[in-house]
């Protein structure tokens, strides 16, 4: 085990020394997002503030949802945490105990982003190849996560031969296989039809109970967020700011039937109250 505090994308580290926070019960890494800002410039030089001072923490084994109307920069935030784009200011930190070779993040993409020239197994092994694992271990690990995501028997299929739901299972298996400190999910089920989405949500919760990876889950769907997450971080529309964090006190393992419970409805209503006016603004403006 390695103790590490790694700054992703640090502009001058203004934050306090964060190692002091290394305490809580569950071992693993926590993610700290500190005063993160992202400003885009369009061609005419106008500044567009996408994210404005985001503070956020994901504890080990926690399931946190980021929810906001379209155009709140939630995908941008996830991209910065994944190290796929640069923040304008602020920083993302990973701190805690890291297993040797464990990557900080792995991402599940909205449009799956599977490599069409690789089979299911080849896709799941992609990250393992980049980690430099020997073939035998790659095979062993990919087999484990292919089984966990219900893809047994489809190992040799190409993505075009699979349904949307099956493709996203491959996306999830590929991400889990590298055993990331935190799993980033960018609206993973929004490209699926409603029935498939409901089934996949249940399945993801089941997988999460078994794999126990921390998850940062971006969505614009309130039900989805409340049903799955321990906490829902609600973002405002442009510029993206944290409006509030809504804890969800539903017991686990969760079932669909809990969607009728008072706690569920209460949390959902509270979130809707926070973003309703913003969603209306997005509607009038057209695309967010």
């Amino acid at each position, binding site marked *: 085990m390695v103790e590490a505090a790694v700054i992703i994308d640090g502009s001058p580290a203004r934050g306090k020394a964060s190692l002091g926070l290394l305490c809580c019960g569950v071992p693993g890494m926590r993610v700290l997002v500190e005063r993160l800002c992202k400003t885009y410039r369009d061609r005419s030089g106008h500044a567009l503030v996408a994210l404005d001072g985001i503070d956020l923490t994901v504890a080990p084994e926690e399931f946190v949802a980021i929810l906001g109307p379209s155009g709140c920069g939630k995908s941008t935030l996830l991209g910065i945490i994944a*190290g796929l784009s640069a923040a304008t200011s602020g920083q993302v930190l990973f701190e805690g105990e890291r297993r040797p070779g464990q990557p900080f*993040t792995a991402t599940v993409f909205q449009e799956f*982003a599977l*490599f069409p020239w690789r089979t299911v197994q080849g896709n799941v092994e*992609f990250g393992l190849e980049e980690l430099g694992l020997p073939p035998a271990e790659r095979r062993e690990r990919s087999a484990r996560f292919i089984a966990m995501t219900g893809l047994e028997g489809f190992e040799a299929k190409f993505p075009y031969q699979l349904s949307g739901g099956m493709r996203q299972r491959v996306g999830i298996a590929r991400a889990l296989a590298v055993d990331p400190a935190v799993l980033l999910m960018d609206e993973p089920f929004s490209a699926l039809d409603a029935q498939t989405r409901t089934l996949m949500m249940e399945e993801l919760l089941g997988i999460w109970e078994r794999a126990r990876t921390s998850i940062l889950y971006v969505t614009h769907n309130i039900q989805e967020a409340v049903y799955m997450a321990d906490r829902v971080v609600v973002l405002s529309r442009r510029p993206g700011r944290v409006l509030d964090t809504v804890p969800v006190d539903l017991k686990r393992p969760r079932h669909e039937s809990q969607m009728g419970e008072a706690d569920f409805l209460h949390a959902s209503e509270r979130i809707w109250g926070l973003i309703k006016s913003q969603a209306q603004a997005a509607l009038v403006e057209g695309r967010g």
Partner: protein
Amino acid sequence: MAVERVTVRDRSAFLHRADHRLLRGAALVGLLALWEALTRVGWIPALFLPSPLGVLRELWDMAASGQLVLHLAASLRRLLLGFGAGALAGVTVGIVTGFFARAEAVGQPLIAATFPIPKIALLPLLILWLGIGEPSKVAVIALGVFFPMAINTYAGVREADPLLVRAAVAFGAGRWSVIRKVILPSALPMIFAGLKLGAGTALLLLVAAEMIAADSGIGFLVLHAGNIMDTTRLMVGIVCLSLLGVLSHWALTRCERRAVPWRQAS
């Protein structure tokens, strides 16, 4: 108002395109039969248009005497060497200019400026540089193949899905991994389109080069037969060339199916 009761019919029926397999074969055989008949009746003198059966007989004789193999081997050697060298260089340049901005800035204007030159016009220059032997012929074919390959590969690289590149980076891929595991497979369909295009160009340049300066090869055979007014022999050369074209296209299509299995359904 009159009461009606009408069954809906498929009004798009006339748009349906059947696969008339039999007709395809019949058209080819029919044309050959017509040609044979015309020459038999004697309406067209054999000097202008020899009969298909006569050409076939000549082809057989030339194959039996070993002459044909000699010419074919010489042509194939030039073709394969030139095509291989040109394709390899084209794919490399296409990937490098497609991926690295600096290489693009240097390479793209150069390619755009030299691409329109008819490559056969460079043959005298190449002969001057490389001599009248094999290297100049191989070089002109390589040049002809290089350009479609470089341009197609470049386009294929530029068209690589940025989402897939991001996904690869998200899973830890560096520059070379991205090129090898994302860019190259993305560009494969375009690379094969370039190979098919290049195969046609290669054949054209082969014949031209062999007509200008050679004492062997199918191009030489055709030119020489024309000079001595041996039309049957000339037709044998043309048949060989058309077979070479068809065969190379067929082989490339088979290779493509092997190399791009994920495209089969779409």
